[in-house]
């Protein structure tokens, strides 16, 4: 119970920070420059507040809370996928050709995950929530973690000048990797007590970590040019006719 209380306290603090960050973005007019961040934070607030309302109203053993939980989980996973897509777009906003390829790959990945989850549904047609949504959410969440890592590697490989984006991607990485590891441990230990306790602590802590990092990025790190391109662009060569002057 005590460990749950810590988890709930962290979760509530997380909602507060999310709402404050959204408010800060709106208040300072940075909403436009940080559209992806605002979008993800808003969906986190909506998802968590909906869950909290259902939990308060019906209790955690009720069927309504179960449906609300998995529906909001679907919303959050789709938002996670959305923010990774938007970060990819921001990373290659100067490279239309590359973006077209990446967009195709992202759509293909989404369809693949849906198809794999569809196989699970076809085996057990009676329960859409358990056999489609849960599997779909799990697989897409892990897919987002892999995509985020690919994005980070891409930024690193192309020597991107967008420091803000790199830190935002790190924040998303913390948010995705921690819960994925914790849930994999729960699965491995067949729902062991310690693993469950660890998951209860890790999930809100990771969200909290991401929010702190994002708060730092939004408040302190200036938005640089962005897109691909070396940090120190060499000066263009002086035309011969000018060099004679």
């Amino acid at each position, binding site marked *: 119970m005590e460990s749950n209380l810590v988890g709930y306290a962290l979760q509530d603090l997380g909602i507060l920070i999310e709402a404050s960050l959204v408010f800060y973005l709106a208040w300072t007019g940075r909403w436009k420059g940080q559209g992806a961040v605002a979008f993800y934070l808003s969906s986190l607030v909506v998802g968590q507040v909906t869950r909290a309302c259902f939990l308060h109203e019906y209790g955690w053993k009720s069927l309504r809370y179960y449906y609300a939980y998995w529906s909001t989980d679907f919303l959050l996973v789709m938002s996670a996928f959305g923010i990774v897509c938007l970060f990819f777009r921001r990373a290659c906003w100067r490279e239309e050709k590359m973006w077209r390829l990446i967009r195709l790959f992202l759509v293909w990945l989404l369809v693949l995950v849906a198809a794999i989850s569809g196989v699970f549904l076809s085996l057990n047609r009676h329960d859409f929530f358990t056999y489609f949504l849960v599997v779909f959410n799990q697989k897409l969440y892990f897919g987002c973690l892999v995509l985020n890592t690919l994005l980070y590697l891409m930024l690193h490989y192309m020597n991107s000048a967008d*420091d803000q984006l790199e830190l935002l991607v790190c924040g998303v*990485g913390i948010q995705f990797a921690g819960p994925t590891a914790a849930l994999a441990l729960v699965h491995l230990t067949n729902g062991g007590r310690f693993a469950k306790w660890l998951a209860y602590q890790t999930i809100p802590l990771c969200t909290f970590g991401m929010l702190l990092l994002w708060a730092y990025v939004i408040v302190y790190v200036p938005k640089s040019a962005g897109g691909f391109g070396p940090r120190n662009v060499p000066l263009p060569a002086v035309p011969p006719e000018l060099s004679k002057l």
Partner: protein
Amino acid sequence: MITATFVLILSAALFFFYIQVACQKILRRQFDREYFQSIVAANHLEFPSLRKSLEVFGMPSDYSRLRMMLKCDFLALTYLVKNSVNVNQRYSNEERLLILYCRWQFLSLAARHLLKLGEEPVTLRLASVLQYFANVVGQRVNTVQFGNWTATDYLFYL
């Protein structure tokens, strides 16, 4: 079972990787000059000489002394970050993150020593965090005028 193990190992590794990268990115912040030198001189901190000796002579054999030096510098600097020219007397978000990172690196230092993996990379990482803290303190002290006092005088009476 195999998939879950793979997911567990990969995501745990990525989790620590992202934390490390975030901390390294914060540490890359450029200061307009080397503020840390006055703080090092005023407080007799040892991390710059330790880093220099690492680069010239390699890893020192006395692990317990190395750990103690780093720990003392860490305690002194975290105290200064919190209390010197800081009206709120609270750490900022990135300072908290870096303190956590430092503690993690101290654990990693102990683990690497036990496993005999070589402490050099962790020591260098710790030195860079300590330098960042010293720069932060130096910059703050530098922005405030204390009559004819220098940064060293101010820190002496703190």
